[in-house]
């Protein structure tokens, strides 16, 4: 990571402190790093070392915040602690954000109790509060932590940008601060990653298209190029249009919403390119399935889907996907002979 401004070790005025001072301003490197993470470049190595950090000049009455060691989460936290003297304990979550790590349990009671011990935070403060982001609650058992460390877990706001209001509000959470949302903008920032990830399988599909269009179908290059465009359009529909349109597509199932979007997409293409609604039957049978699958995959990024629900969707859609694609292959074969 090289140029990370959060690890400048400086001598500080706090006695006996093993804390590392961090800045609350973002450097240009941080901004570039965040951009790279969004586009999925070198994302795996995006972590900072676990331990005790501080913003400003914290004292015994300063608040203690708990964070994961995913650099992007930590950066957002320190940025929002601008002007506040505070302690930050960074847990070892293997560079994974709080929400995900709490689901896995790495952002968990054991790790928190271990780090409370290791950082000797209790020697630095004369109160008993630690502020844990509410998104970490699936991994942390507040009463367990109390029993094992003596410290009281106070759940802080979902968004770090609410921290100042939270502190002003006597560390009371308002309803707005604790609800997980999934707004248009929140969905949109996910789309670059989704799109880039979906490209992973495109070489395979391109080879398949080449085989079908050129080698077997003996169609001209023009058909092949058109199919490539339609294919990338489908990827775009499933990874960018779908997240954007999520609440406006009918039904609750992601796979079904996605299938409808795929149908709209392919019918639009057919009307434009072939001047007819059904155009190419093979497209009609396969493209909506591709879009549906990509959409279903978006459950992983959504903030409100449940495991049981996602399993149920798979159980229902998998056979239907199979039937539709098989029919596509049959139509293709009939066209050949």
């Amino acid at each position, binding site marked *: 990571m090289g140029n990370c401004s959060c690890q400048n070790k400086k001598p500080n005025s706090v006695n006996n402190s093993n804390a590392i001072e961090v800045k609350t301003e973002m450097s240009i490197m941080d901004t570039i790093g965040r951009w790279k993470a969004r586009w999925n470049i070198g994302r795996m190595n995006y972590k900072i070392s676990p331990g005790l950090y501080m913003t400003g000049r914290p004292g015994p009455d300063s608040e203690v915040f708990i964070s994961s060691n995913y650099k992007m989460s930590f950066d957002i936290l320190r940025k929002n602690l601008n002007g506040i003297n505070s302690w930050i304990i960074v847990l070892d979550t293997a560079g994974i954000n709080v*929400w995900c790590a709490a689901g896995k349990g790495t952002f968990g009671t054991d790790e928190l109790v271990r780090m409370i011990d290791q950082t000797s935070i209790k020697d630095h403060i004369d109160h008993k509060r630690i502020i844990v982001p509410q998104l970490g*609650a699936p991994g942390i058992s507040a009463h367990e932590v109390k029993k094992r460390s003596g410290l009281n877990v106070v759940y802080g706001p979902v968004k770090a940008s609410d921290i100042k209001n939270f502190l002003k509000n006597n560390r009371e959470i308002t309803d707005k601060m604790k609800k997980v949302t999934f707004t248009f903008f929140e969905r949109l920032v996910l789309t670059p990653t989704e799109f880039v990830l979906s490209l992973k399988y495109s070489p395979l599909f391109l080879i398949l298209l080449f085989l079908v269009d050129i080698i077997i179908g003996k169609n001209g290059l023009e058909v092949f190029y058109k199919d490539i465009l339609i294919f990338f359009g489908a990827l775009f529909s499933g990874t960018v249009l779908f997240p954007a349109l999520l609440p406006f597509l009918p039904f*609750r199932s992601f796979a079904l919403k996605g299938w409808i979007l795929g149908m709209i997409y392919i019918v639009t293409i057919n009307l434009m390119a072939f001047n007819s609604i059904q155009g190419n039957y093979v497209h009609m049978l396969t493209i909506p399935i591709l879009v549906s699958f990509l959409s279903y995959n978006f459950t*992983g990024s959504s903030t409100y889907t449940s495991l049981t629900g996602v399993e149920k969707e798979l159980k229902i859609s998998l056979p239907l996907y199979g039937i539709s694609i098989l029919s596509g292959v049959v139509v293709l074969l009939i066209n050949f002979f």
Partner: protein
Amino acid sequence: MKMKYLKNVAQLKLDSDKCTGCGMCVKVCPHAVFVIDNKKAIITDRDLCMECGACQVNCPFDALEVRKGVGCASAVIKGKLTGSEPTCGCSDTAGCC
């Protein structure tokens, strides 16, 4: 617009006899599934629950039961393929969760 996932799938159980109305579940639930009424927690709308498990681990009186897991397609598929419990593959796929 409030988005809801599939109807009647979330596996969330509340044992009212054990509940003391302490309000911890109200505090930790990211989707405002609970309210406290007459010193007892009640489930307002089960369809809002994403099975994150936060309420269960934070209920000091063991009154809640959730099938905790990640609502993530690639985790479910991977789990089915390898025959293991679905876990979030965030370490290698960034989009997950």
